[in-house]
């Protein structure tokens, strides 16, 4: 159904030119068919839930009691639990759960390094799939392109009929620029007081380190999910021998002789660094998934649905 809808939309409203062609290449009929099946799978995973059931629990001024908290000056005294005060003589405030719509933030690293090994394309496909699932569940879905700062931004969308905008936005993303996750994510967190699920799709190739950025998200109470994209081309380049390595983002050069042994060492290094990232995320309560850019995106999404509980 979504494929037919998208096809109609693309035919009716879609722009002409290279962008439309790229969108059709990236999100072809096969992609849309898989998208529909993923949406069905996600519905089965959250069977019985209605609109508004997939809510983000937030303690606030709802009607459902959640907990007590100690009174501090400045609190709303209307929320004092009089019964407790009478029995125990302590000032405790009643805390109610405040339910609001889930905000899904897809933070796509579109720096130049993401162009290697189709990592950006995989990120776009995953965003489209997960976004479609979110839209189907009436979540607020927004997308932000990152680099050394925030670039393109797709305002929050809701409802399946907004899929076209999502896809149009994604298909117009182009890799380029440097990576500065710390600055970009800090800025993102400051710009978005509405907390939600922040899905970070990146290769984490940041000369300044990725930790500060993730820390900023966590610090601003975002639920963070890191989809760490990697490619075999990262450690198996199409060249051997004496080469002059050029950083895709900084243009920095380094001369090196590529040997089989060195490639093995590099692969081991990448593996150990992924392990470090995974440990860091676990320590911060951040969901972490290592994803191969060459893997079929539908299998990745199913994996995320089943193993990660990403959309529960």
């Amino acid at each position: 159904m979504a494929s037919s809808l998208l096809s109609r939309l693309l035919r009716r409203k879609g722009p002409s030119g290279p962008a439309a062609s790229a969108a059709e290449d990236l999100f072809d009929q096969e992609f849309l068919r898989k998208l529909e099946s993923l949406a069905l799978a996600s519905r089965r995973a959250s069977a019985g839930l209605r609109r508004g059931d997939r809510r983000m629990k937030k303690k606030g001024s709802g009607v459902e009691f959640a907990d007590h908290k100690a009174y501090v000056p400045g609190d709303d005294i209307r929320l004092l639990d009089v019964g407790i005060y009478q029995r125990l003589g302590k000032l405790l405030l009643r805390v109610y759960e405040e339910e609001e719509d889930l905000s899904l933030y897809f933070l796509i690293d579109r720096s130049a390094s993401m162009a290697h090994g189709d990592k950006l394309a995989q990120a776009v496909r995953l965003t489209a799939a997960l976004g479609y699932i979110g839209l189907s569940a009436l979540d607020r879905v927004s997308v932000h392109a990152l680099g050394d700062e925030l670039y393109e931004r797709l305002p929050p969308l809701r409802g399946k009929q907004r899929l076209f905008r999502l896809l149009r936005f994604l298909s117009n993303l182009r890799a380029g620029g440097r990576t500065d996750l710390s600055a970009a994510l800090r800025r993102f967190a400051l710009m978005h007081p509405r907390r939600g699920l922040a899905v970070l799709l990146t290769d984490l190739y940041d000369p300044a380190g990725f930790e500060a950025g993730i820390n900023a998200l966590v610090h601003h109470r975002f639920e963070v999910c890191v989809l760490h994209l990697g490619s075999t081309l990262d450690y198996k380049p199409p060249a051997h021998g004496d080469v002059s390595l050029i950083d895709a983002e900084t243009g920095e050069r380094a001369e090196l002789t590529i040997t089989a042994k060195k490639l093995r060492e590099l692969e081991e290094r990448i593996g150990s660094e992924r392990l470090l990232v995974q440990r860091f995320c676990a320590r911060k309560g951040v969901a972490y998934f290592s994803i191969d850019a060459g893997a079929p995106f539908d299998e990745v999404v199913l994996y995320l649905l089943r193993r990660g509980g990403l959309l529960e």
Partner: protein
Amino acid sequence: MKLSFVLSGAPLSLLLPLGLGLCLALALLYLLREKHRPLVVPFVDLWRRASEKRRSSAPWQRLRRLLSLLLQLILLALLLAALADPRSDAAGDKGRTVVFLVDVSPSMAAVVDRQSGRTRLDEAKRRLLQWANALGRRDRALILSLSARPQVETAWSNDRRLLEQAITSLLPQHSSANLPRALRLARDVLPPHSDGEVILIGDGAYPELRQEDIAELRLSFEPVSSSSAAKGALSNVGISNFSARRYPDDPRNFAAQLEVSATAPESAEVEVVLRSIDEDFQPAATIEVKRALIPAQGRLLIPLAELSGATEGVIAEVRRVDGGSDWLDADNRAQLLLVPLPPLRVLLSGPPNQFLDAALLAEPGIETSREAKEELPYDIVIHDGVDAAHQPGRADLYLGPHADQEFPRQLGRQLRMFGFDRWKRESPLFSAVDPYDVQVLEGRALRLDPGDTALAFSGQDPIVVMGERNQRRFVALGFDPRQSDFYLRAAWPLFLHNTLRELAPRASGDDGVAVAPGRPWHLRTPLSDPVASVRGPLGQVTSSQRRVAVTEQRTTMFGELAGFYQLDQGSQSVRFFANYFDDAEARLAPTRELFAKGADGKKALGRLPSPRPFRREHDLSPWLVMLAIALVLSFSEWWTYHRRWTV
């Protein structure tokens, strides 16, 4: 030891600029190799962190690169040095100049090892090959074969392959060694002031050397016969003469005569086998086998009469059957060609005559015809009652006078009822013939011209006359035999036989042209073409073909192998044969020591020395060594480069 080298390859004037240019090119290529290919990666820091451990040895990396360049420069230097082809210039080492004089006389065919069949010549060739392989770069050698006519087998060379090829092609000849002549040839071929030496390799069975033979020669002797060979050397039997001839009256049969000589100190029983030859000149059917006892140190003539079965030629072989030794094989075989007798061609002129035809049928080797063919010259024309004077022929037989023709002489008076009153009994025509009872009905007396001979008379009238007219001999009868009872008598075919043989005497039936190996062969060619080719010895593996010059239908050539030969000239050919009859060779005992005597033939000059041993040089050429080192270095460079040891 001081070692110096001379460059015998590319000149330095070429190598130095070439080397300089190549060094520069190499350095340039090396620098180009230093310029690494660009490779865009997503995150250089990742690579940098991965190679942190290796970067710690950066100075060593630079050293490795220098080592790589150094390796390549060494490689280049080695290749250039190899091109220069440096050679050792050891002072005083001028090399040896050696003439190898190899005995190829028949005695060298004697077997020294019965089990392997190895001959003295095989042993000589083995040692020659050893020496040829031991020749140094500066040594040079030339091979002379020693036979009746010594020959130069190779040019001066130290090319082992060339020498080996010449050595392996040496074959025993059928002519005795002429050592003085070979030494003269060796002296002639030695370069002047070369300090050359002559090494004689043979069995030592030569006539004594004299001082003048070895003058100005550094002659040494390498014996190949064993010490025990001399003892049995004199024990030999061989054919010393062989001849055969056809019977003139019966060409199918022939007689042979064989002379066998023995040098054995005891009498020797031999078996003589006579075989015919087939069209390939190979022994075919056995014609005769005969045994004989040859006296010690003597000869025996063995006549073999009334033999038949050979058309082209015969081969005689002799071997001892008493178990005694016979060391020389070359003289155990002889061959000859039986010259085929041409048929007697007779032209019959006259009406059919059964009596004449019947008598001619009994004649062997006769070919009759009643139609004259111009291309065939007839030996005899029989004028049977008619005149046929114009017919081509060499002689005439007139049977009865012709009525209108008085040729070849004037006819006398008419005779009736007469007979042979007198005849010349000594005449070959009346050999075994008594014509007294012959009765003649009629005839004419014959008149004699000067030079004619009356062979039979009736009264005083000649009735059988023999003479010559126009260089044609004739026999004339004064009567037609059909007018007599001569045809009915046994004397008629005998008379006809005698007359034909008298008018056209047959060839004697001698054997064909014979030549002797080791001596000049003077041959008459069938045509006057300036060139002819000679093949032979036919039917043997050593057969070869060569062209000879012909002058006035004669040629002179030289051969040293016994056997059958054929000279071809255009469509014509002549066959001849060569036999080795030289028991002097068999009487020379092999020896391991050779002595030379003074000019008077008495004063011994001393034993010929043994040849200096050849020092095997490990002459691995320097350029080859350099090339090998360069290859090893190149391989090392390749090996280490791919493992990044030298990069």
